[in-house]
């Protein structure tokens, strides 16, 4: 009987609990994350009675959570995937709406800009349209700025969203760790309170909406969570430990964001952070916001570049070259945000072309000309440009060598506009010439080319000349009005006055001090004898020089050269009708005379070797030509030369030219100076010393004291002591060096230094110099005495070449020969050396400030057809002939090109037709540039053959497509998620119908068990009633 009571009471208890579980389920029907609980009832262990086992009733074993871990995981994953799409869809749509809108997008502003360019192109002189153009250009830049600002606002919002999402993830992780802490008290998940596990699962579910999780469980139900690619990477929660997630802008790319775990501790970069809102935001940033920004910035750069290229290749309303229309804010990255309009004056809008061609009003034909310009590629020229071939350093150590054995060696090409180019030729060989010729074939400087040389030049490959260039010697070595473009071109040795900037004590600048020109030579060549410089081969300033002849039997000294320079200039001595008297003091009996008499008959009267003995010898020589010149000479009472025409010819004019004097305003001097640095002196050695004053000076041997020369001063004193015998004096220079030089009366004479060591044959003396004659140097400067007498000022000193001259002659005089292209080089000129032998070339120059195009604009040129098939190119201001070319009148269409400018003619021109190309400075009505700007609208300037607007629209479309893709994915993933939710609800959800059924079931079981108890009681009562 007790069994019956035991069974039923146990059952009542069990069903009471089961009903409690059901009512708990019903109570939690609206609780988020609640998992339906199920009562586990089991039959208790049976009792054995005899052979039979008797049941002992029911037992309430446990409350089981109706959960399927696989379904939970599936739901978390699908939740992550779905949540990732929503920021993509929302923000991509925002971006598309901003960029694609007609009001805020770029398309309308861009079209407006081009539309006003088009209007302006129809009336380029209109100031109203110019202002409208600027207004729309400004509209374009501000649209770029606004777009960039709006995109930035979206980016900022996304950034905040990210931070909020990360903070939420971190909070949830903290809560999960707390739940883990409570779970840790038990060691079996089955023994854990169901509500704790529900809370754990709910937290995981919420976290999965923020990022895709990897979840692992301990036996007691504690969860480990990571956001990395595996469970061990990017761990957020491990037991009760949490590590926060942070999002920081990528250092490498500001448009990207990196996810870091534990940013302030053991920093770990997370690679696989995908899914969830965070993953969605990261890919939004990377796939949509960054490309949109980069694309917009690139577009702004292209717009600025292309528009500026056109605008700076045009003329504005002031006739000046256009400034860039757009610029980027200083110090900011070049992009849509920093794009600015930098022109605010409507007249500064550049509409006109940089060039135009004008027909001469007196052209016989009606031929019209159009132009196009392509900048010539100077880097392809042969020989190469000055700045690539020669260092800008006139020092001979920086020179390049001219190879021997060539009749013609190309050196370099001087680009037009190069400033103050000087090209030196040193160690020249006899007969070698430095030549300068324009690429158009105009010979500027040098000596006339031989037929061979001209032929070589014209057949060289690659050609140094423009195709079809004709050689022109019209301007060779000309100066002043006859010079090529009136330029100052010179070949020879040259010195200029130098201006030295002066300052008052207070620091304010004063007028420059002008230092006289000084042409200073170095030591002249040794061993020169006989005729060193032939007559009429060199000229000093405008005066031809007579012959320079070394004294017979002697070597030429610097003093001889100075004397020659001061006396041998070919100058008119007199000119008169009938009678002429020339002072004896004006005559140089060492030099040649020219006497011109009746009917301009001229006699060249050369002196015998050593010169005319006296004035009478000259008279005889003149009279030897009387038959030719009708001039009779005599010596008058004053001892002067008197010339008279023979009777019957007295009305003729006669003139005498003689190499009798120096050049007005200039004086030459010579000096031999030997400088030895103090540390090179040999204090223990002797010195043999004397000057070359024929016969007068004697060699003196200076012997050092026993202790040697104390210093340079001591040696100098010894030299000075012997001055009377040697003609050589000495002093100690500022840097302690010993300077030996001539006594003033022997200035410029050679000084002998010795002796040599008999053993080595090399110098063995106090100066350390090899034994031999030291040559002096010549200098030419302004003659101060004549300056006092009111002579004209001499600006430059120029020792130049006449037809028989060559750089070699100048080198021998200790001077450097060079081609001087003063100020701006007037044309693209090539420099070459004719004549065989080796020499060295060096240069100094400044490259031009003006571009090739600007120079062509400033200068302009005129084309004149001389015959049907030949034309010349003239400089409009000087009428210099720049080039001569043959022309093909039968070409279709006829065209010609000069310096990159191509003129296309409507038909064959007539002789006498002239066309002037100029810089279009007053062509305000020209619209050529604006037309190019209009055509930019349809130009495919972006990669993939896209126009500006197309590129922008494509960008918007691309973002739209991404958003569309995200939307499609969102729809698909919603279905997946719905299924997962449905599956979860199926297994874990509370259905009131089901609970109602359970309620009835357990209620009835409870009632039945209670009935059993009653029955047992009745039975017990029955037994008690047995009496």
């Amino acid at each position: 009987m007790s069994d019956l009571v035991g069974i039923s009471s146990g059952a009542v208890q069990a069903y009471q609990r089961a009903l409690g579980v059901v009512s708990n389920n019903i109570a939690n029907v609206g609780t988020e994350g609640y998992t339906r609980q199920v009562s586990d009832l089991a039959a208790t262990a049976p009792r054995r009675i005899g052979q039979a086992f008797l049941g002992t009733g029911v037992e309430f074993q446990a409350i089981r959570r109706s959960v399927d871990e696989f379904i939970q995981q599936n739901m978390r994953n699908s939740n992550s995937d779905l949540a990732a799409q929503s920021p993509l869809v929302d923000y991509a749509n925002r971006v598309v709406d901003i960029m694609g809108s007609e009001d805020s997008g770029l398309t309308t502003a861009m079209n407006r800009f081009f539309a006003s360019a088009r209007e302006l192109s129809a009336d380029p002189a209109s100031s109203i349209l110019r202002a409208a153009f600027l207004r729309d250009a400004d509209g374009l830049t501000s649209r770029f700025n606004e777009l960039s600002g709006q995109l930035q606002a979206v980016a900022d919002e996304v950034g905040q969203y990210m931070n909020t999402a990360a903070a939420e993830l971190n909070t949830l992780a903290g809560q999960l760790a707390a739940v883990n802490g409570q779970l840790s008290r038990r060691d079996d998940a089955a023994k854990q309170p169901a509500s704790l596990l529900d809370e754990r699962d709910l937290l995981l579910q919420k976290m999965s909406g923020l990022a895709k999780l990897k979840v692992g469980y301990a036996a007691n139900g504690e969860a480990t969570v990571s956001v990395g690619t595996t469970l061990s990477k990017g761990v957020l929660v491990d037991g009760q430990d949490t590590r926060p997630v942070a999002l920081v802008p990528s250092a490498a790319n500001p448009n990207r964001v990196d996810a870091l775990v534990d940013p302030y501790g053991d920093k770990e970069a997370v690679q696989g952070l995908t899914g969830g809102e965070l993953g969605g935001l990261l890919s939004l940033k990377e796939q949509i916001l960054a490309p949109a920004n980069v694309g917009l910035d690139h577009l702004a750069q292209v717009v600025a570049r292309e528009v500026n290229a056109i605008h700076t290749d045009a003329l504005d309303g002031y006739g000046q070259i256009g400034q860039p229309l757009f610029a980027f804010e200083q110090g900011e990255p070049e992009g849509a945000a920093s794009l600015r309009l930098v022109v605010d004056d409507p007249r500064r809008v550049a509409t006109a072309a940089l060039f135009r061609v004008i027909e001469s009003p007196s052209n016989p034909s009606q031929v019209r000309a159009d132009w196009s310009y392509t900048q010539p590629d100077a880097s392809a020229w042969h020989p190469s440009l000055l700045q690539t071939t020669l260092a800008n350093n006139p020092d001979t150590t920086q020179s390049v060598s001219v190879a021997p054995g060539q009749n013609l060696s190309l050196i370099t090409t001087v680009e037009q506009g190069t400033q103050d180019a000087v090209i030196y030729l040193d160690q020249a060989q006899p007969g070698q010439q430095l030549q300068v010729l324009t690429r158009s074939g105009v010979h500027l400087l040098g000596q006339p080319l031989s037929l061979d040389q001209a032929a070589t030049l014209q057949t060289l490959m690659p050609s140094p000349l423009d195709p079809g260039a004709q050689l022109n010697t019209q301007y060779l070595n000309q100066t002043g009005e006859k010079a090529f473009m009136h330029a100052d071109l010179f070949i020879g040795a040259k010195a200029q006055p130098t201006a030295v900037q002066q300052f008052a004590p207070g620091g304010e600048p004063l007028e420059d001090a002008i230092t006289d020109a000084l042409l200073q030579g170095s030591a002249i060549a040794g061993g020169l004898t006989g005729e060193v410089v032939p007559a009429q081969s060199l000229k000093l300033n405008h005066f031809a020089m007579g012959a320079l002849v070394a004294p017979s039997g002697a070597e030429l000294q610097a003093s001889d050269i100075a004397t020659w320079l001061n006396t041998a200039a070919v100058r008119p001595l007199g000119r008169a009708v009938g009678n002429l008297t020339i002072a004896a003091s004006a005559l140089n009996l060492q030099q040649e005379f020219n006497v011109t008499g009746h009917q301009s008959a001229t006699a060249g009267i050369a002196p015998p070797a050593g010169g005319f003995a006296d004035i009478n010898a000259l008279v005889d020589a003149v009279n030897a030509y009387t038959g030719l010149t009708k001039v009779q000479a005599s010596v008058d009472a004053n001892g002067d030369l008197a010339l008279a025409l023979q009777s019957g010819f007295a009305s003729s004019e006669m003139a005498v030219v003689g190499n009798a004097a120096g050049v007005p305003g200039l004086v030459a001097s010579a000096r031999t100076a030997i400088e030895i640095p103090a540390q090179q002196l040999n204090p223990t050695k002797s010195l043999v010393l004397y000057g070359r004053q024929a016969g007068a000076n004697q060699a003196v041997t200076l012997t050092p004291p026993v202790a040697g020369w104390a210093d340079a001063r001591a040696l100098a004193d010894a030299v000075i002591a012997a001055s009377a015998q040697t003609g050589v004096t000495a002093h100690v220079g500022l840097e302690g060096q010993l300077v030996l030089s001539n006594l003033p009366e022997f200035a410029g004479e050679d000084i002998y230094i010795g002796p040599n060591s008999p053993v080595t044959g090399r110098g063995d003396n106090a100066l350390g110099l090899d034994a031999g004659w030291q040559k002096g140097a010549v200098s030419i400067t302004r003659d101060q005495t004549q300056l006092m007498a009111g002579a004209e000022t001499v600006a430059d000193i120029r020792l130049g070449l006449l037809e028989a001259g060559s750089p070699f002659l100048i080198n021998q005089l200790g001077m450097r020969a060079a081609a001087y292209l003063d100020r701006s080089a007037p044309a693209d000129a090539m420099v070459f050396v004719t004549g065989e032998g080796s020499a060295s070339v060096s240069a100094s120059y400044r490259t031009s400030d003006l571009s090739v195009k600007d120079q062509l604009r400033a200068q302009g040129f005129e084309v004149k057809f001389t015959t049907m098939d030949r034309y010349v190119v003239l400089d409009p201001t000087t009428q210099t002939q720049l080039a001569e070319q043959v022309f093909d009148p039968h070409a279709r269409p006829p065209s010609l090109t000069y310096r990159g400018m191509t003129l296309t003619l409507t038909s064959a021109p007539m002789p006498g037709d002239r066309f002037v190309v100029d810089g279009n400075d007053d062509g305000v009505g020209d619209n050529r540039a604006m037309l190019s700007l209009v055509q930019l609208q349809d130009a495919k300037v972006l990669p993939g053959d896209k126009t500006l607007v197309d590129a922008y629209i494509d960008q918007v479309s691309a973002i739209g497509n991404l958003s569309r893709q995200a939307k499609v994915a969102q729809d698909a993933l919603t279905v997946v998620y719905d299924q997962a939710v449905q599956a979860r609800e199926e297994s874990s959800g509370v259905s009131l119908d089901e609970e109602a059924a359970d309620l009835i079931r357990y209620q009835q079981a409870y009632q039945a068990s209670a009935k059993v108890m009653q029955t047992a009681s009745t039975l017990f009562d029955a037994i008690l009633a047995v009496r």
Partner: protein
Amino acid sequence: MKVSTSYLFDRGTSQMADVQNRLAKIQAQVAQGKQVIAPSDAPEQAATIQRLKAVVAKQDDFLNTMEAANYRLQAEESALSAVSDGLLRVRELAIQAANDTLSPVDRQALALEMQGLRDQMVSLANGTDADGHYLFAGGRSDQSPYTYDAQGRVSYVGDQTRIKVLVGDQRLLALNRPGSDAFTRVQRTDMQGQAYGVGFFEVVDDLIAAVKDVNQPLIQRGADELEGLQDGISLALAQVGTDMNVVDAQRRVAEDTKLRMQTLLSSVEDLDYAEAITQMNKEMLALEAAQSSFAKIAQLNLFNYIN
């Protein structure tokens, strides 16, 4: 399969929200009459709309340009035809002057009239457009192209810049004629047999001088040269006429294109009301059905039957 109670409610509400969203969108479309409310609704369609609108705007620009060009061409035409008339009259007078029987006084009268015609032609050649820009000055449109020098001779000081404007995607129209193109030179030969050009007004001036001086050969030469000048003016007039035809033709092209693009634009952009309203009714029906069915289903519960 079990449906949990909360799932039943969630599903019902979310489905109704979906239908309501769709309804709101159709309502916005109907209200605005546009297919695309925001570019994000249909990015491709929005791009097409923008492209089409740009084309339409461009055609409008072309039409504006052509209108301006037409004014200018008309101004050129009227100036040139007046010059042509003047030249004809000068030629008549020159032929009269060549008549030996005329008295010196008559000749002076002829010369005087010729002088007046010449002055009128100069002022026509210095004509301006509505903005005050000289018609025949080339690029120097702010300076009068025909000026008197110290000797009273008129010479051309404009340049030969020929301005073109875009009147179609690939069509350039010559907007101006430099004076030297219309008022052409004639060719004479000097003593050395070298040909040289003589300006339009110099020819007329020489002729007037010849009439005054009664220089028959020069009058004859002048009359001959006038024919050359007349040819030049006629050619220029013909070119102006051609250009005006081009404007007419291009205007039709632009208008056609504009109409075509607008039709296309309407088909892409504008809403088909019949379809939209039908769709709206459908969605409304669906919403009503969803609402009433949900209300009914939600009432069903086993607990209703336990008592």
